[in-house]
């Protein structure tokens, strides 16, 4: 047993670092990023530079198969890539096209669809959003009611999608719709279709979330005409395609690198926060709370590495992989909370952008972003498989209950 990278991986790590140094300049790393990763649609010049470099290097979609423009990196190399880019705060390609849709396309879609869409996902020129959730179906996705009726060579789609991240900046939406209402099991009769967001009848309504983020939307679909060519795979089999993705565990979901950075920022903040003539970093009660999270995070990092090591050897991720999201979100929420605690009174001001731009921050510079991150961070145990649902799954799949 050891925790060392082998020489090949060490070399790869150096290569990645060199690339990051060239494509994501040090001064960009200090920039404040919004906690939601820039759904706002404004893309600063450094970010554009980074994405261009990624595409040029053919590293924009490392997880894809080589034949579709991905890489042949080993799991460990992918892990190194994720860690190094997270540690340097590099912006990430939007996950919807790259991670959620593309695997469905290259696994199930026709050549025409692949040729039409994969390249523009790969180079980031087309933005996608995911039309799964509906007002009546939160964790219970299979209860979806959006209806697609075949009318000649088009589906007529009616329904409402909600919690749709990035719908307001997306060009396309991949969407689960019900094409058969008379099935035995609710999971049957669902189809996977691609909708051009410019189609008549598509309307996007913003939903503002805690932390004042405009990331999600509801999307109403009224008599939207979708060409049958936009059906992925077979009609009524969409659940199978979507489900493969939902259960797809990735080591990255633990967010270890992100939490490590946040923890370091928390310690810096505590060291810079005055208290009783000293600093907060000398307050044992507070420091012990940080130390306790650090221990949890150290454990989680190893748990992640255990999963990685198994996958690296060609095995399926072990049962320990099921805790990555559960523990990872718990830890990141805890760190966010402690940051707010460190800020004391300066966790209260909530100035608008204009005031910040004109007059600077109120209290420490981290104040507002930390507060917003804490608020927004509550979503991490809700969206993308709530903690409760995850535990149901582990109880069944891992413990056999």
């Amino acid at each position: 047993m050891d925790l060392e990278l082998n020489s090949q991986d060490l070399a790869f790590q150096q290569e990645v670092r060199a690339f990051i140094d060239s494509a994501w300049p040090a001064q960009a790393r200090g920039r404040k990023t919004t906690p939601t990763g820039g759904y706002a649609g404004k893309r600063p010049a450094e970010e554009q530079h980074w994405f261009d470099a990624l595409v040029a290097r053919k590293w924009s979609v490392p997880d894809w198969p080589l034949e579709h423009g991905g890489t042949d990196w080993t799991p460990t190399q992918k892990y190194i890539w994720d860690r190094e880019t997270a540690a340097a705060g590099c912006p990430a390609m939007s996950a919807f096209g790259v991670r959620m849709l593309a695997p469905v396309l290259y696994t199930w879609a026709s050549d025409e669809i692949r040729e039409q869409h994969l390249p523009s996902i790969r180079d980031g020129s087309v933005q996608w959003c995911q039309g799964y959730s509906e007002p009546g179906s939160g964790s219970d996705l299979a209860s979806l009611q959006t209806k697609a009726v075949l009318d000649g060579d088009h589906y007529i789609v009616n329904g409402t999608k909600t919690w749709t991240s990035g719908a307001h900046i997306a060009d396309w939406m991949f969407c689960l719709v019900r094409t058969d209402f008379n099935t035995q099991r609710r999971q049957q009769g669902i189809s996977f279709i691609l909708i051009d967001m410019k189609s008549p009848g598509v309307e996007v309504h913003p939903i503002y979330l805690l932390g004042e983020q405009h990331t999600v939307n509801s999307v109403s679909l009224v008599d939207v005409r979708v060409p049958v060519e936009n059906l992925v795979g077979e009609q009524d089999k969409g659940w199978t395609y979507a489900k493969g993705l939902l259960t797809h565990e990735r080591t990255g979901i633990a967010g270890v690198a992100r939490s490590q950075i946040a923890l370091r920022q928390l310690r810096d903040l505590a060291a810079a926060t005055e208290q009783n003539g000293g600093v907060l970093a000398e307050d044992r009660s507070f420091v012990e709370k940080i130390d306790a999270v650090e221990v949890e995070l150290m454990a989680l990092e190893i748990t992640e590495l255990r999963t990685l090591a198994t996958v690296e050897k060609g095995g399926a991720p072990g049962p320990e992989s099921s805790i990555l999201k559960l523990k990872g979100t718990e830890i990141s929420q805890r760190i966010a909370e402690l940051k707010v605690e460190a800020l004391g009174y300066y966790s209260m001001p909530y100035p608008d952008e204009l005031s910040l731009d004109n007059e600077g921050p109120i209290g420490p510079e981290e104040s507002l972003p930390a507060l917003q991150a804490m608020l927004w961070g509550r979503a991490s145990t809700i969206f993308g498989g709530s903690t409760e649902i995850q535990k149901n799954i582990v109880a069944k799949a891992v413990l056999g209950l």
Partner: protein
Amino acid sequence: MDFSFTDEQNLLQESVARFIQNDYDFETRQKNCSESAGFNAGNWSTFAELGWLGVPFSEEDGGFGGSAVDTMILMEQFGKGLVVEPFLPSVIMAGGALKAGGNAEQKEKLLGGIIDGSVQGAFAYAEPQSRYNLADVTTSAVAEGDSFKLNGHKAVVLNAQNADIIIVSARTSGAQRDEAGISVFVVDANALGVSRRDYPTVDGLRASEVVLENVSVPGSDLLGTLDEGFAVVEQVIDEAILAIGAEAVGAMEVLYKNTVEYCKTREQFGQPIGKFQVLQHRMVDMFMEHEQSKSILFMAAIRLDEGYGPVAQKAVSALKVQLGKSARFVGQSAVQLHGGMGMTEELNIGHYFKRLTSILTLFGNADFHLKRFGRL
């Protein structure tokens, strides 16, 4: 041993509850927030007319009676409505400072205005470096003839934006964190040398950074005894903790009850989610935290009414410690159990959560008060 209210108290409770019920639904509340003053001036007049602005003051001072239990009753209802009108900073804090430290003349001059709503106040006690230590005061007040010259920076002063008077703690002698040597002054909010940066707070209120540059304050506006202002500040803050504690208990009640209602109606997997045992037990825990907080709130109110001193201080700190656990748990759980809806700005749940987040910080977090509890 009695936990019932007097007839007057019952009337007060009903009257505030009715106001929240009829005139303070969530949409209205959001509209009030977005007024330029951060609250609805009409409501303020109503509060004055109904006598609520006099609740924390004795009849002698022109008030309603002035017991902590009265304040608690009113603030609990305000907590249920997430009321944004500046009752806490103006009446409880600025008014409270006048009550605790003011001489007859000062009360005569200002307390009447606080009670009839014509005067708005703010209480500036915290500083950028002070964190929760009320004695950590660098703002200086130097005697010059019959007046004092004040210089310093007061942090996160609630309602300073609307205040006619800002009551300021300043150092007249001693070292930076000495309790002795602090004095309290009534500062005209429009006096030369007072500047503010106003901003909204996370919970929809208004606060300001207040900078004092060579502000001249007449000696007659010294509140209480020179160098002995710490006692005034401490008492005002303890009474303010009772007030926000009551608010928190009211907010927690709304949160747990709304969550129960939501879980009864929201269906997933073919049944109301309230049938899932894990959610049931979580709601039971929310209910329990609310009841425990309510109990310790009662204790703190009773102890304050028995007389201000270490026993009351200890009870107040216990309240804040309890809230540190309960309000955090209830707020987070309400958001979690409401799922995506709990995360929206559109639904009230997130706003209660944000108010509770502020309350956890205000006047010292649970860590701070656990230490104080241990010392007392």
